[in-house]
């Protein structure tokens, strides 16, 4: 085990807005609005059934699941799981590398 990180914190929209504010010369308010716009745009595309591929980050995919039989793990009772659409995230190799401490990873998508 690598050295344990100091108390893991939770990053929120406000932190993303701060990152945008630091990097681009926009006001804090506008930075926050743009974070919202980006997330909303990605969501809308997925809800419309298309995938979103963000190079060097990863892909958000929509999958259609057909009905299957599930089981209540507590009671063992079988229940049907209705067909549904789910969203999955497939991290890019670059992100996988960075999460494991690679400083530069240039494997293309």
């Amino acid at each position, binding site marked *: 085990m690598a050295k344990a990180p100091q108390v893991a914190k939770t990053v929120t929209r406000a*932190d993303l807005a701060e990152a945008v504010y630091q990097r681009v010369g926009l006001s804090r308010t506008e930075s926050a609005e743009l974070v919202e*716009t980006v997330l909303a745009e990605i*969501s809308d595309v997925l809800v419309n059934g298309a995938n979103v591929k963000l190079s060097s980050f990863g892909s958000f995919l929509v999958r259609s699941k057909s009905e299957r039989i599930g089981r209540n793990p507590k009671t063992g009772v079988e229940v049907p799981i209705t067909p549904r659409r789910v969203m999955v995230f497939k991290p890019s190799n670059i992100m996988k590398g960075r999460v494991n401490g690679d400083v530069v990873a240039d494997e293309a998508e």
Partner: protein
Amino acid sequence: MIKSELVLKIAERNPHLYQRDVENIVNAILGEITSALSRGDRVELRGFGAFSAKQRRARQGRNPRTGSQVKVDEKAVPFFKAGKEMRMRLNNGIDLGE
């Protein structure tokens, strides 16, 4: 949709921004999410979903081609869980549970 198309779409809706700025904005957001995960932090975006890094222990693997044993080191794997609002929106606004 790919990143450049996302940038274009957002630039169209924000005519006061240069496309280059929008590109920086998108990259700042994605970069911050990745940095957070590499620090071991969690990223929680209400309504959208949450990113975290799950720890996988070292294990004895096998090369599927040759069958020889290989050591697989412990590693962290990025993980995403869609938020409740996203799950509902994907299913015509119906809450089907997790």
